[in-house]
Every structure is written in C-alpha cells, then in structure tokens.
C-alpha cells in the first residue's frame, strides 16, 4: 500500500518572479527529506569551525573538470568546486531554487528571458571575480561538438546568454517552458580562463594541477586511485562557511571495506548504504543513518507487443540487429494492433498484476523499510506533480475479479489460471547482477502465485539483458530508472520513445497518453503542466504499463561526530559547507 506523500505547502503557481530567501535560511533548512537526519545538529549545539572530514568514495574522481569527468563518484565532489548559478532544493521546482553563484533571478513577463544577478563576492580560486563572461563561456562550451557534452540537448531552447554588465547574465529562450530555470542552471560553471585549452584537448588535460575553482573548498592534493584532499577556500563568499578545514575523499572500491571503515571510525561519511546493512547499523547504534528521498525507482515493465514481433518486424524492414534504423511511432502503433501481447495487452490484466503484488512486503524485505511503494514514474520526491491518488493498493480480491473479467477464470490443478488452452504464465527478464531486483521478483512471484499467476524470473547476463530489453523480447522486464529534476515520463512511455529500440521498452502507449505528455512537455510554466501531469497519472493508474514496485531512499551513514549533515536526492554532500564536527566526539583528525 502506498504511503502518503510528505506534506508540502502548495505554492502559488505561475510565479514569474522568484526572489530567493536569504542564503543562510536556505542553507539551514536542509531540505533533504522527510526524515530528519540523525546527523543533523541538535538545537543546543553551536556549529564549530575546524577539523577534517573523511568521506568514503566508491569510485575515483577521474578528472577535475566537470565536463570531462566520467566516473559517477566524481560528480558529487566536483559540485563542491564548480558552482552553479543557483542550487536546487529537490522536489520544489523553480520555487525551490536558492542562491549560489547568483544572488537573485527573475523572468521577464513573457518568460522569454531569465536574468541572473551574480553575487559580486563570488571569486574563482585564481582571485578573479565570477562574471557573466564565465556563464556565457560555459554555455558555449556545453554546445561545443568537440566536447560532446551529453547534456547538450538541455540547452536547445536557449538562444543566447547576454552580458549587459559583468555581474548580470541574461538567458534568452526561444520559447517558454516548465524547465527554463533548470535548463539555464545545468550544469557547473567553469571559468572563462579555461578557454586557453581547446575543448578537443580537455579530455587529455590533467585538470588537478590547473583547476580554477569557486566554492567552499579548493583542491589541496590529489593521489589518483587513493584520495583527494579539499581545503577550505578562504575566498568563499558566504561568510563564516565552510566550517570544516579539510575534506578527505578516500577511494574504497570494495563496498564491504568501505562499510568496515565507517564502522571502525576511519571514515565519517559513506553514501549508498545498502538498506539492509543500514538497518543493522541503526539497530546496533553508534552510527547515524541519514535518509533523503530517492530518485531511483524499480518497476516491472509489461510488454504491449508479442515478444517476437518487434525484432521480426525490424528484420522485415531490413534493419540490422542494433543499428539505427528508420523507424517511427507509427511502426509501433501498427504492431500494437497487428501483434498485441496475448496476455498483457489487456489493461485489466496489467492492473490485476499490480493489485495482486504485495509491494509493501517487497519494500520491507528488499529495502528493510528504507523505501516506499511506487506509484508511477512521477516519483514522490518530485513534490507537487506527484499524485498519491494514482496509487493502486494491494488488493488480491479486486485483482482476482479483474482476471475473471478478462477471461482468466479457469484454474489448473496447480492453481494457475487458464483462459481456454493458455495458462497465465509470464516470464520477467532481469539483470542477473542485480540481487535486490531478483529478490523483489521472487517476492512478486510469491504474491502473484496466490492470485493464480505463475511468474518466472529469467536472470540474464547484463549484455544479453540489455539487448533483450531493447528488442522487446520479454513478457516483463524488471529494471529501474533514476528520475531527474525534470518530469520525464515522455522519455519512457511516449510512443516516440518506443521506436528505434528506445526507452519505452514495453512499447505501451495510447493516443490519449501521448497527447497529455506532449502538452505537459510543451507547457509554458510548471503551473500549466501540473494538471496535465495529474491527468496523466490517473491514466497511468488505469493502464499500468509498469508495475512500479518501489522508490528507493538515499541512505548516508555518518559517524557520530558529524553534525549539520543534509544529504539530498541530488548529492550526499549537499550543503557540505554547513557540516561540522562535534568537538566532544574526538579530536579533529
């Protein structure tokens, strides 16, 4: 059964002007989740300056330039060194932005321009002020084909950045949309001084020795494969911050070794805690586990097509196995009619499968309770657009009625339902390396068995799993997406996304859904999009192209001496400039 979303005040929608709250207030609020972190400072304690925080990293920072770093672990560290214009408070959309390199920002009445006033105190580590020139340089770079930044598509609606003066950056948009502020704000700003290196040479440049950064910390030393030490940047523009003198990021490639180091007090922070281990740590005491809403959700996607149809059709059209091929949504719609899945094309069956799955049992058993029952691809962390009423409960009785209604009323001696000569048996492909998903599938199969559905897990090596998923050669596929700041169901459930071995793995779509997704994506503001997202979720509830099993939570383990920690869905080190070390818990390292 779905849990209620956290209470959020509804914001006045359609606001054209966003004036930020004071930075200190914003920093203090944390905004990281509905469960206050145990690492948060008790009211009686006053933040102290000094000390070294040791953070366990599961991968290395392979480049000290955010546009050439490839390792996932690097992004969160680089956020501390290269600022964005504003910081996001996840789930609050434009209204949740708080100052960072820019102090204020405002839209023009027609939302075609967005003006940022840069903080005059913001400086790069070489002493030069952060100027509009840096913002314009960053945009040019993001679009540079030689650099081939994979977020370049986010900049398509931005016509230009204009600099009426060094402290003002004006983004001019081709059209208004729901995500203009986010589009302008993605990603890190880099100094115009980096112009000295041609973008084609960026990948092979050793940036740790020439990095020019701006933020609470700067690079002190780097030992590849081992650790990186960041030291307080005395030029940081928020007075009194950061509290920490240094942060040491130690690379721990082995998850068990990282956890052992946390338990031994050798590191202070470890993110991506396995949920079941987190539960043990909390039970044992001594360490704190801070939760933040997660962006990742796990689902079983149901195939709308006969599993053999898509590949056969591609072959008939002369398309090679995984090569790009002229293919459109019309091809998918044609297949939906000519080769529907013999069982799963019926929405009553899909709805019954969700109703008959005890997802709370999965949340408890697989995530140790650190998660919530999933509702739809619009995850609860996204705030207002999330519609809790789109949740389907665990209701085996209704599920049985729906299956009877769909003609699956016969029963074999082993309890499996039957319609005519066909037994209600389904196979779900899974990435064999993902143990949690396999556990979830086992629990789902147990639930469905009670409803007369035989679900078989088909674990596959990763490469084969990906190929089968893209080729739509499955009844069901268990997988997961990680939501971003933008609401993106059109990327996974629009008919356009089904063509070309796209992200709509199960090829489900309806004209009504496509139309709603198109209108929501083209909405001129978040307020205009909101009712459309709600309407789409109601449709999703009835159609259930996915059974969304659960949303994960971000779990960060902290040593008892850490205070003020406010991890967020965007980064486990969010607001690190406000973290501090309790003096009583031991001498600074």
């Amino acid at each position, binding site marked *: 059964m779905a849990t209620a979303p956290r209470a959020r005040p509804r914001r006045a929608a359609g606001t054209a002007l966003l004036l930020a709250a004071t930075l200190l207030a914003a920093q203090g609020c944390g905004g990281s989740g509905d469960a206050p972190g145990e690492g948060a400072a008790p009211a009686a304690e006053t933040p102290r300056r000094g000390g070294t925080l040791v953070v366990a990293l599961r991968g290395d920072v*392979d480049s000290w330039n955010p546009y050439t770093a*490839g390792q996932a672990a690097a992004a969160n560290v680089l956020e501390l060194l290269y600022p964005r214009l504003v910081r996001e408070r996840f789930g609050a959309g434009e209204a949740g932005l708080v100052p960072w390199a820019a102090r204020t920002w405002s839209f023009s009445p027609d939302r075609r321009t967005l003006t940022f006033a840069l903080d005059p105190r913001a400086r790069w580590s070489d002493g030069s002020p952060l100027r509009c020139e840096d913002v314009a340089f960053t945009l040019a770079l993001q679009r540079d084909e030689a650099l081939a930044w994979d977020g370049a*598509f986010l900049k398509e609606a931005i016509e230009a950045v204009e600099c009426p003066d060094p402290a003002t950056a004006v983004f001019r948009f081709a059209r208004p949309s729901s995500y203009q502020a986010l589009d302008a704000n993605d990603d890190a700003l880099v100094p115009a001084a980096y112009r000295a290196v041609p973008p084609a040479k960026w990948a092979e440049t050793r940036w740790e020795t020439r990095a020019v950064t701006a933020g609470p910390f700067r690079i002190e030393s780097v030992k590849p*494969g081992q650790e990186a*030490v960041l030291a307080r940047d005395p030029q940081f523009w928020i007075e009194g911050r950061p509290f920490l003198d240094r942060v040491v990021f130690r690379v721990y490639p082995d998850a068990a070794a990282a956890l*052992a180091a946390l338990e031994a007090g050798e590191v202070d922070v470890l993110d991506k805690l396995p949920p079941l281990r987190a539960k043990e740590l909390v039970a044992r005491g001594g360490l704190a586990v801070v939760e933040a809403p997660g962006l990742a959700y796990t689902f079983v996607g149901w195939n709308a097509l006969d599993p053999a149809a898509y590949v056969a059709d591609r072959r008939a059209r002369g398309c090679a196995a995984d090569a790009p091929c002229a293919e459109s949504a019309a091809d998918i719609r044609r297949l939906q009619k000519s080769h529907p899945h013999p069982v799963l094309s019926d929405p009553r069956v899909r709805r019954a499968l969700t109703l008959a799955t005890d997802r709370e049992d999965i949340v408890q058993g697989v995530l140790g309770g650190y998660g919530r029952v999933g509702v739809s691809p619009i995850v609860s962390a996204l705030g207002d657009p999330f519609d809790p009423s789109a949740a389907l409960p665990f209701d085996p009785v209704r599920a049985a009625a729906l299956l009877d209604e769909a003609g699956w009323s016969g029963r074999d001696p082993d309890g499996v339902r039957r319609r005519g000569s066909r037994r209600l048996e389904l196979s779900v492909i899974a990435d064999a390396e993902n143990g949690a998903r396999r556990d979830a599938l086992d629990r789902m199969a147990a639930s469905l068995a009670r409803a007369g559905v035989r679900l078989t897990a088909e674990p596959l090596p*990763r490469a084969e799993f*990906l190929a089968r998923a893209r080729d739509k050669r499955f009844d069901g596929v268990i*997988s997961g997406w990680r939501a971003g700041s933008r609401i993106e169901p059109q990327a996974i459930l629009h008919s356009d996304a089904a063509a070309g071995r796209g992200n709509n793995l199960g090829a489900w779509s309806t004209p009504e859904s496509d139309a709603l997704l198109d209108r929501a994506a083209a909405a001129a503001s978040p307020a205009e999009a909101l009712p459309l997202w709600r309407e789409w979720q109601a449709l999703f509830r009835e159609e259930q192209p996915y059974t969304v099993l659960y949303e994960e939570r971000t779990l960060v383990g902290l040593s008892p001496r850490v205070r003020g920690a406010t991890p967020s869905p965007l980064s486990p080190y969010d607001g690190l400039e406000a973290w501090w070390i309790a003096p009583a818990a031991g001498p600074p390292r």
Partner: protein
Amino acid sequence: MVDRAGRGAAPLSARALARRLARAAATLAVVFAITFLLLHLAAADPAERLDDPGIPAEQAARTRAALGLDRPLGAQFLATLGAWSRGELGVSIQHRRPVREVLAEALPGSLLLGAAALLVAYSLGPLVATGCALLPPRGQRRADALLLAAATLPRFWLGVMLVLVFHTWAGLLPASHAAAPGAAARFDLAHLVLPALALALPAAAAIARVQRAAMDDPEVEPRLALARAAGVSAPRALWRHRVRPALAPVAALAALDLPLLVSGAVVVESVFAWPGAGRVAADAVMGGDYPLALAATMLAAATVVAGGVLLDAVLPRLDPRVREGR
C-alpha cells in the same frame, strides 16, 4: 647442446633466442585477437544506458559512433591493430584519458605491491620447505597438510582475516590505502604490509610445497651416492643433486607469478583499497572500457610470456635433467 660435465649450460644461441621470441610474439598476437573478440562479445556495451530516462536512446547511437563501435567488428579490430602498431593504445572510455596515462598512473602501486609480495613469498617459501625437511616424518605429514591448506586459502578471505587480527583487534597496522589520509607521501610501507602478506602467504605455502616435493625425489639418493663414489665432495654433490634441481620448479612458479608485478591481484587491491593496475583492469572489463581492458590484458600477457622466455633461459642452468631432455 648438452653439457654432460654439468659445469653450466650452453648459452642460448641467437637462433634459439629468435625462435623463442617469435613464438612469444605469436602468442601475444593470439592473445590480442582473443581478448579483443571476448571483450566485444562479453563486456557490457559502454554506450548503453538503462538507468537515466533523460538521456535519449539516440544518445547511445551517438556515443557508439563517437567511440567507433558502430563499425563492423572486423573493421574495429583492424583499426585497433593499426593504432597499436603505431604505438597508440587509444583513449580510455571510462577515464576519458589516454590508456597509456591511466596505466602508467596505476602501475607503480602494482609494482610495489607485487614486488613486496614476491619478495616475501620467495624468501619465506624455501625457508619453510627447509624447516619442514628437518621435522620427523609425522611432523612433515602435518606440515604438508597445513601447507596445502595455506596454499589454497582464498586471498580475499585471508585479507579480511589479516585486517581483523592486525588492524581491528591488535591495532598494529593500517587496513587500507597506500598512505594515511592527507599524508604527503604517496606510499607508506606500513600500509603495504597487510596487502603484501595477503598475496604472499598462499604463494609462500605453494612454493614450500613444490620445493619439498622436489627435494623428496627418490632418484636423488642414488645420484648422491654415485657422485660421492666418483669423488665429488659432499657439499658439491648435495648442491648439484638435491638443492639445485629442487630450485627448478620454484623458478617455474616464479615465472608464472611474474604478472603479479603488473596486474596486481584484483581482489586484494579492492579489499585493501590499494591503488593498482589490477583494479583498473577489473573496472575496465566490467565497464566495457575496451581500450583500457585490452591494454591491461596485453600487459599481463606480455609479462607471462616474458616469464616463459626467462624460464626457458634459466631452467637448464638449474636442472641438468632439463638440459638432458629428461
């Protein structure tokens, strides 16, 4: 040429050396082709993302094209072969840096760890074997059983146990990384001890077992007696007929252990968070980083082949039976 006097082997002739080097080159070429093929068939597609819906599916096609992975496998192989023949190892897909640079950065850690482990193993192994030889028969049997158990210990388990005893309980040695947090030095010998022991102890046990087996050769006693009867002094006879032949299998083991120097031991490097090439190679294989995985594999293969050539050159000097083709 057989040296019947046993006063040293004939030097490896230029022709024989050329033949061995040619064989080594052919071996490496085969390894190159097989590795290339296996990596492309079995490793995950580095362009494929099935986690972030915000990245359009076409991005995978663009990435594949940028990496040259959209061409037929044969064309990719020839392009890679051509680049290698020019000394270009390519750019790492994961690290987005030249492969040569990534490996060069990781090698010092592996060399240090591998060298320390080999030093400990090849010092300890013969000592243990000699010590066992001094035990009464029942003691020897027990020692053999213990050596067998030690030689087959999984290194990750041994690593965890060493950490538990020497770090967690005794607090004597650091458990991870090559230096303390924030230390100026890149390597600290105290940090080397546990990972080196985790690598060395099973190897030392294996060496001791092999050497003991060689020393127990039933043919040795008659040879010794014959040598003595021929007027050879006791120490000289002992060296020639018991000790030196027993070194041959140990030398063979050493040649096989040489790759430890450049590829490290993946599991031990991970357990001890030791920065080395083994970890880099494992990550490359898992992440579908073909250029880096290929280069790391070839580096290890080259060391194995070099060890084989070295062994061919050294073995006849150690064991007269090899020279005699027995």
